[in-house]
């Protein structure tokens, strides 16, 4: 009985972690900054590849993972300054440009590094509850997803940078007039977004098959979570992941992965039909 209950919790935590970690970076870039970043999956892939390369060069895994996140963040900042910045008022063009970046990144990786990349051992052991055995690394992923949620909340709600960033996203002209360095804020926010994408890749690197197109397997879940979360990502992403995670994990358990995937997408359609502003819009209306 307890084993089954724990198993249900584990499955939910697993899906929740996947949704939060894939969506966190996009929540900032798409949810806050309004850039429909179709290269999100490739920043995740970047995190995976850097982590694996650094790990195979001899660094311990946590350090390698930090490198993965940092490199993805730096590349993101560089791209923001050079390519994305002129396109903030042109969302369709930025969509096209980021799609182009994603194509260049996957094909470039294929040409430069080949069709596969050596994988990493999953760290940690397994533990048993009743008749089931579980991977303890999956619990690390769940903890990491909670940390990421906490980090994003504290960063944007409790720091000077966060106030400046939110002010800039709301009214860039006014923020600049008050002495906020607009360009710096944009570059840093974008970099934090891609860095979180890189972190997602870094964390999932030891559990997956590494190929250049692997970013795509995160993309749908990332967008779906952010859209259901709504405009205020700090408020919406968490509840969105809880709701979608519960739906997906439940359907997976009862009817299998095919129904799980279909059910997730149907749930998204229904949620945005009933709550057009997503969870955050609904929560804001309830509280104000």
């Amino acid at each position, binding site marked *: 009985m307890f084993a089954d209950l724990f*198993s249900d919790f*584990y*499955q939910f935590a*697993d*899906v929740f972690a*996947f949704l939060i970690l894939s969506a966190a970076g996009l929540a900032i870039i798409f949810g806050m900054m309004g850039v429909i970043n179709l290269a999100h999956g490739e920043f995740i892939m970047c995190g995976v590849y850097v982590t694996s390369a650094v790990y195979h060069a001899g660094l311990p895994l946590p350090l390698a993972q930090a490198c993965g996140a940092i490199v993805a963040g730096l590349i993101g900042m560089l791209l923001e300054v050079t390519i994305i910045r002129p396109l903030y008022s042109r969302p369709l063009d930025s969509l096209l440009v980021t799609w182009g970046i994603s194509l260049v990144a*996957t*094909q470039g990786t*294929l040409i430069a590094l*080949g*069709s*596969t*990349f*050596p*994988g*990493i*051992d*999953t760290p*940690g*052991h*397994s533990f*048993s509850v009743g*008749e*089931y*055995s*579980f*991977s303890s*690394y*999956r619990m690390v992923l769940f903890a990491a997803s909670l940390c990421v949620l906490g980090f994003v909340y504290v960063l944007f709600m409790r720091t000077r940078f966060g106030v400046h960033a939110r002010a800039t996203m709301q009214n860039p002209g006014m923020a600049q007039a008050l002495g906020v360095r607009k360009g710096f804020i944009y570059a840093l926010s974008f970099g934090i977004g891609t860095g979180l994408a890189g972190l997602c890749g870094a964390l999932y690197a*030891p*559990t*997956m*098959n*590494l*190929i*250049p*197109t*692997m970013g*795509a*397997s995160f993309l749908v879940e990332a967008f779906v979570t952010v859209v259901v979360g709504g405009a205020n990502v700090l408020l919406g992403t968490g509840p969105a992941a809880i709701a979608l995670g519960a739906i997906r*994990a439940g359907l*997976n*358990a009862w009817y*299998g*992965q*095919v129904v*799980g*995937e279909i059910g997730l997408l149907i749930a998204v359609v229904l949620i945005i039909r009933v709550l057009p502003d997503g969870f955050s819009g609904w929560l804001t209306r309830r509280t104000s």
Partner: protein
Amino acid sequence: MKRRTLLAGAAALPLFNIVDSERVRADTKTIKIGLLEDISGDLAVFGIPKLHGSQLAVEEINGKGGILGRQIELMHLDPQGDNARYQEFARRMLQKEKVDLLIGGITSASREAIRPIVDRTNTLYIYTNQYEGGVCDASMISDGAVPEQQLSTLIPWMVEKFGKRVYTVAADYNFGHLSAEWGRTLLKPLGGQVVGEEFIPLGVSQFAQTIQNIQKAKPDWLYMLNVGAAQNSFFPQASAAHLDIPMGSPIKIMLGFEHKQFPAPVMANMYAAANWFEELDTPAAEDFKKRWRAKFPKETYINDMGYNAYVALYMYKMLAERAQSLNKDDIRKVIAKGDAGIDAPEGHIVIDPKSQHTSHHMRLLSVDKENKVHIVKDFGVIQPYWLGQVGCDLTKSNPKEQYTPDHLPPKR
């Protein structure tokens, strides 16, 4: 009546001249072979060795004087794993470029997408993958292994060695469904039982629930039909959760070389029946590997698809030279004799006239805790007998159908 014959005769006269000059020119013209392999996108892992296999064979054959004294011109297009592009490119190859032979396709979905297009022409098509079997089509030659070669060997062995309770994890498209059906069909007479069967959408990479379901069902072994890089993430996740259940599969190791991608012991306890895998060490195989590695030193693994792609061109050379023609009907007359074979690196293999599939030397391989491959059993040469047994006979009729254990040809 008489006048018409006369007219026909008169019309035929200049025609003969044209045909004659065509024939003279044909001797010096190159043979055009169209190749459709995915070298970008999700399937690039498999498509790149396939392209290399074809290139190596063409280089070798051209170096020794070509086919019927004519050089081969290989025309490769990359459909990027997109079935619509497969159809577009197949049309371009067949109608515009007028290739003499079409080779390629990775997934069964891509093969079924282009087969009707091939069937409307008089061009021969060689499919070079192992697959779920059952295609009875005179335009197609298959030189990959089929279920009676891979599954009729593997499944009874797994049942005897590990037990009768089987859990199937399969990709949710035609290959996965048909191979799962094959598993059920083969398990029934052995008293085997499918204690769980799960179909996974392509692109899914998270398997915590599947792993739990397997632990709940307590199978003796797993029948793995998961496809693609995303779904291969099952293996590290299962290994991390300590799911130490033996696995059998017709596509792992020899095709996806998972043991070269994941760190040990992720692929430990995997069993597969294959006509080719790079660890095969017969003298002919060693010689073949040496030539391949000389041309493509950076190849991660020479997989069975790449090997089949290589063999396909030698098969075609043998057929064309015995027929002294590139014409499909002439070539099929050679196949109908029943002894159209070549000495391939795996051993001597022959095309079966009834199904136009190829006999293969099958071996059972296993993976140990260091991700090393061992040959557990040699099954010898196995004929592709199933289609002939259920009533497909391409020497008599051409139904252009794909049959399965649940969809058999109509009884005559």
